[in-house]
């Protein structure tokens, strides 16, 4: 059943420039992409064009492309699914869909910089392309334990910048001087900044 649906999607689904809107997932140059912007340009008389910006979901790069109005692109089978991080076996990061219990292995390219925020049991958003993880988005905030930081010096008032602390996942963030080894802190993964004690 599942295979049948995939084949049907490959054969049927394409989008015309009229469908192009921010977020639409399409195939471009053999890679999955997301439409960022679509502007119609038309001379006073003559051919109408669409100037389209598409983000290549593999590389993150923005591609600019001009279409004749009405031209089409194949749909990309790309979906975002919430999944729980299970473990890292050194080659793949394994995730599980908590509803279907289906497991997926994401390679280092797909995980990228997100690896430093991944803690077992945390729920991430996995972008799947043709059922293979394409990218991993960590939770907005994570709770992580400090494994190494200098003891704060009493009466140290120099600067306000705090000190570096290495977390259990290997990420390094700046924390206030009063934070000690072994404490668990809350970190914003978008900015990479300390939020509070957990």
């Amino acid at each position, binding site marked *: 059943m599942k295979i049948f649906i995939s084949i049907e999607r490959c054969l049927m689904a394409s989008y015309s420039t*009229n469908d192009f809107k921010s977020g639409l997932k399409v195939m471009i140059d053999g890679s999955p992409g997301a439409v960022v912007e679509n*502007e*119609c*340009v*038309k*001379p*006073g*008389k*003559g*051919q*109408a*064009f669409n*100037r389209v910006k598409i983000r290549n979901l593999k590389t993150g790069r923005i*591609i*600019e*492309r*001009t*279409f*004749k*109005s009405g*031209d089409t*692109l194949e749909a990309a089978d790309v979906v975002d699914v919430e999944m729980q991080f299970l473990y890292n076996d050194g080659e793949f990061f394994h995730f599980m869909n908590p509803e279907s219990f289906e497991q997926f292995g994401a390679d280092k390219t797909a995980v990228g910089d997100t690896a430093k925020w991944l803690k077992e049991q945390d729920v991430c958003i996995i972008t799947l392309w043709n059922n293979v993880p394409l990218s991993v988005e960590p939770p907005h905030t994570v709770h992580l334990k400090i494994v190494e930081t200098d003891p704060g010096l009493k009466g140290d008032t120099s600067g306000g910048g705090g000190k570096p602390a290495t977390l259990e996942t290997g990420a390094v963030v700046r924390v206030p001087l009063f934070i000690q080894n072994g404490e668990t802190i809350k970190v914003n993964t978008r900015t990479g900044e300390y939020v509070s004690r957990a």
Partner: protein
Amino acid sequence: MIDNWRPSATLEVLKLRARMLERIRAFFSQRTVLEVETPVFSAAASTDPALASFSTRYTGPRFPRGQTFYCHTSPEFPMKRLLAAGSGSIYQICKVFRDGESGRLHNPEFTMLEWYRVGFDHHRLMDEAVALVTEVLTGYRTLAVAEKLSYREAFERHCGIDPHTADIQTLAGAVTRHGIQANFDIAHENQDVLRDLLLTHVIEPHLGHGRITLLYDYPASQAALARVRPGEPPLAERFELYLDGIELANGFHELSDAGEQQRRFEHDRARRKAAGLAEAPADAHLLAALRAGLPDCAGVALGLDRLAMLAAGAKSLEQVIAFPADRA
């Protein structure tokens, strides 16, 4: 979404639009150009393959079995019938309708000012169009003296090619050189598609900065309803008016030869068929009027919503239209 009953334009902009209309009517009144009205619905449609007409149906007395009517994309044909009937110079302010056009600079219905001047050629009409736009923008925008640029000069200046003599290879080379990434095979397009690519992507952004730019004398293949001046190459006596890189108006030294008009209708209809577009019945009344005799004249159509946008310093049409398509 719950607030979509509200206009997307501010009251201040709506007042600006009303003032624009007053100024336009005063402008033509001073020049004794007659205001006219012509039908929105016509049994004929625009045959231009780049335009898509809305259609509707009337059933009742006179047409008991029903008749398809097309919403005009411009009032050009009936206004020319008035000219042929001896109206003298005329203007009209009306809503026109174009299917498939929506975006920052497009709304499927929009307000058009169209006028015809008996005895004018396209150069005299360009001067008058500059006078009108300058008058309407008084107090909103200060413009330097307008610039006139032939289609050839614009291509030479901004693309380094002669658009009339350049072959497909040369045009495709210019498209590539200017970094235009087309999602279609440019080597297999016709010259006009490539010229349009260069015009919209490379040239237009340079036009109309701080002053009006007029582009004139187009390739004969882009004549639309303009007369073609014989020569090497023959040139269409057509112009467009730009401000802030945006096309505001398109005008012609009007074609008056009925036989040539009929050939263009047939050519358009064949292109529509080849492209799989909806059929568009040609206007037999226009052909009859041309046969009866259209006085030598020039005409121009100007988008008033875009003009309001430039007067208001707005970035998109929805800021100057009370209820654009998604709120209509």
